[in-house]
C-alpha cells in the first residue's frame, strides 16, 4: 500500500463502495465532471457514468429529498453537501424525512443514505464555509453521525457508512483533506467505536475530526513538559462509545473535550453530562471543554485564535491538573 491523502482515501473508499454494490449512487453539486470542489469524487463519473455519479441541480433540499425517494426504490445514495454551512436548506429533509421514515413506516422503509459534509474551519474561507453543525444531527433520533480524522479511517468509515442501513451524517474535516498522507490499515475498525490514538495517564483529551491532529500536537508539546496526555479519537458522535471514554477517564480522572463547534449545547456538553453520570467518583476535576465560542464563525483572519489551538488546549490541561 502507498500512503495517500484523506481526499484520495475517501475517493478510493467511494470507488470501492460503488464497485461492491451497483445500488450505490453519488449525488451532489459539482461531483461529476469537476470531481467535487475538493476533488473527493474525482474520476468517479468518468468510470461509473452519469447515472451513478449525478451532478444535481443546486438545491440541497432537492438532493436530500430525492435521495429519500431513491432509497425507497432500493438505492443507496451518497449525497455530498458542498460545504457545512450549506446543509441547512436540506435540514428539513434530513431531520423530518431521512431520520424518521424508518420509524414512521414501522421499520418497513429503510433509509440507507450517507450524507457527506466537509466541515470545520482553518482554511481561510468566507462565511458559511467553516462551520461545525454536528450537534444538530446528533440531537436527532434516527441519524448516526461520524467524523473521520485520518486517511485510513476515511477510507474504511465511508464504506462502513454506505453499507449501514441507518442514515449516516459523515463529517469530513476539510482542512485535513490534503494535509498529510498515511497508509491505509489492512482491516476496518468498528464504525461506532472510539480509539485511543495516544496513550497517557495524566489527562484525557477527547477530539474528533479536525481536532484530533490538534490534540495530538498538544499532547506532544505537553510531553516536553513531562505531562502525559491520552488522546482519544471519538470517531463516532452518535452513537457515542462511552466505554472507551469511561475506561480512559477511569485511569486519568481528568477529561477535556475539544471541538471546533460552539461551546454550548454541543458534543462536549453531552459527553460531560454522561461522564459525570457514569464516572462521577473517577473524576479528579470537572470535565472541561475547549471549543469555538457561542458566536457566528469569525472572519477568517481571526479563526486561528477563535478555534481551539495548542495554547488553548494546554491552558485547559493546566486548569484540569490544577484542581
Amino acid at each position, binding site marked *: 500500500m502507498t500512503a495517500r491523502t484523506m481526499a484520495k482515501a475517501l475517493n478510493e473508499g467511494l470507488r470501492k463502495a460503488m464497485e461492491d454494490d451497483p445500488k450505490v449512487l453519488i449525488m451532489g453539486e459539482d461531483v461529476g465532471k469537476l470531481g467535487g470542489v475538493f476533488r473527493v469524487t474525482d474520476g468517479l463519473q468518468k468510470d461509473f457514468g452519469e447515472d451513478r455519479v449525478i451532478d444535481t441541480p443546486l438545491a440541497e433540499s432537492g438532493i436530500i429529498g430525492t435521495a429519500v425517494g431513491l432509497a425507497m426504490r432500493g438505492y443507496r445514495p451518497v449525497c455530498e453537501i458542498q460545504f457545512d454551512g450549506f446543509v441547512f436548506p436540506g435540514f428539513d429533509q434530513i431531520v423530518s424525512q431521512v431520520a424518521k421514515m424508518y*420509524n414512521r413506516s414501522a421499520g*418497513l422503509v429503510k433509509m440507507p443514505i450517507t450524507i457527506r459534509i466537509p466541515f470545520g474551519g482553518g482554511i481561510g474561507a468566507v462565511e458559511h464555509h467553516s462551520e461545525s453543525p454536528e450537534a444538530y444531527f446528533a440531537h436527532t433520533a434516527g441519524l448516526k453521525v461520524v467524523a473521520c480524522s485520518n486517511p485510513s479511517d476515511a477510507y474504511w468509515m465511508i464504506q462502513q457508512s454506505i453499507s449501514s442501513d441507518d442514515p449516516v451524517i459523515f463529517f469530513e474535516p476539510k482542512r485535513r483533506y490534503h494535509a498529510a498522507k498515511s497508509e491505509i490499515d489492512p482491516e476496518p475498525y468498528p464504525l461506532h467505536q472510539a480509539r485511543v490514538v495516544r496513550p497517557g495517564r495524566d489527562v484525557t483529551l477527547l477530539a474528533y475530526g479536525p481536532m484530533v491532529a490538534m490534540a495530538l500536537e498538544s499532547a506532544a508539546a505537553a510531553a516536553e513538559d513531562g505531562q502525559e496526555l491520552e488522546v482519544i479519537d471519538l470517531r463516532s458522535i452518535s452513537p457515542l462509545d*462511552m466505554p472507551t471514554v469511561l475506561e480512559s477517564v477511569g485511569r486519568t480522572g481528568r477529561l477535556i473535550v475539544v471541538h471546533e463547534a460552539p461551546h454550548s449545547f454541543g458534543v462536549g456538553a453531552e459527553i460531560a453530562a454522561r461522564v459525570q453520570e457514569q464516572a462521577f467518583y473517577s473524576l479528579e476535576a470537572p470535565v472541561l471543554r475547549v471549543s469555538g465560542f457561542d458566536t457566528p464563525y469569525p472572519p477568517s483572519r481571526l479563526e486561528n485564535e477563535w478555534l481551539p489551538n495548542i495554547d488553548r488546549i494546554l491552558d485547559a490541561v493546566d486548569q484540569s491538573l490544577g484542581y
Partner: protein
Amino acid sequence: MTEHVRAVHPEPDMVQLLTPEGQRVEHPDYPLEITDDEIAALYRDLVLVRRIDTEAIALQRQGELGLWASLLGQEAAQVGAGRALKKHDMAFPTYREHGVAWCRDVDPLALLGLFRGTNLGGFSPHEHNFNNYTIVIGAQTLHAAGYAMGVVRDGAVGTGDPERDTAVLAFFGDGASSQGDVNESFVFAAAGNLPVVFFCQNNQWAISEPVTTQSRVPLYKRASGFGFPGMRIDGNDVLASLAVTRKALNDARNAQGPTLIEAFTYRMNPHTTNDDTRRYRLGSEAETWKLKDPIARVKAYLLREANVGTEFFAELEQESKKLAEHVRAGCRALPNPTPESVFQNVYVDAPDELLKQRGEFVDFVSSIEEVNA
C-alpha cells in the same frame, strides 16, 4: 371576499368530461373510452370514500380520533387519479389522500392510527406502492422525484413493456405550491425528464389562506416555466381526473417526462376537524360548490344515461353501512402503542444508549402501573 368567490369559476380551458348536471362531454385531447359499468365502479369508490370520511369525522367528534383531515369535495380528483395508476406505479400522498389510499387497497383502518395517535404510518408503502402520509407540506414531491430517478436507473421507463414501465404520482395542494421542495421537485423532474406526474389538488384554501396568497397565475401555468406541460381539470369530475391522469402517467411511462395537473376543486370541510372556516370564508362559497358535487353528477349520469338499476344503489348502500361499521369498530380496537414500542424502529441497528433508555422507561412505567394497581 368577492375575489375569492370569483376564483371558483372555472377557466374555459379546464378539462371536463362530465358536467355538474351529469352530462358526458367530449374533450378533443382526452378521449375516454369507458363503459357504464366502469363509471358505476367509480361511483362506488366515490360513495365509499365519502363514507369513510364521514365516519372518521364522527369518530373525531366522539373523541376516538385526535384529528381528521376531511377530503369532502375532493373525492373525484382523488379517485380519478388513484384509478389511473397501475399496480406497479408508485404514489406519494399528503395527509388528505384517503381516496387514493382506497384505490391502493389500503384498509381505511390503517389510515386512522395516525389520527388516533396509535401509530405514525400504519401500512406498508412497498406493499401498496403508496407511501405513508407525509405531513410536512410538499416534502413528498421530492421523494416522488427521487423515486422516479430510481425508476429511470432501473430501466423501467420507455421500454414499451406495460408491465415494466413505471410512473410516479406526487400529490400536493395549492398551499404546497409555494414550498421550495415542490419547486425543487419540478426542477429535478424537468432536468431529469423524470416519469413523475404532479397532481395538485387546488382546493382553494390552505387552512385560512386563499390561492391568491400563493399565486398570481393559475397554478397549472407554473409548469411552463419549468419546461413541462401543465393543465387544469375540473377536480370534481372523476372522469376528467381519470382521463387526464391516465394520459399523463402514460406519457411518464413512455419517457415523455413530467406533467403538472391542477385539479380545480374545493375543500368543502374545514382544513381539519380543529379548524373553523367561519373566521375566513363565506358560507355562500361552499353553497356554490355544492352545485358541483363530485358524486351527485355521477349519480345523475347513472340514473339518466346508464343502464344501472336501483338494485345497484341499494347494494352499495348496504356495502357502505358495512364499511362504516368496520371503520367504527376497528378504530376503537386499534391497539395503543406500548411504552417499549416508541423505541422500536428508530434505528435498524439500535445504539446501546437507546436500549438502555428503553429498559429504564419500560421498567419505570411498569413500576408505576404496579403501584397504581
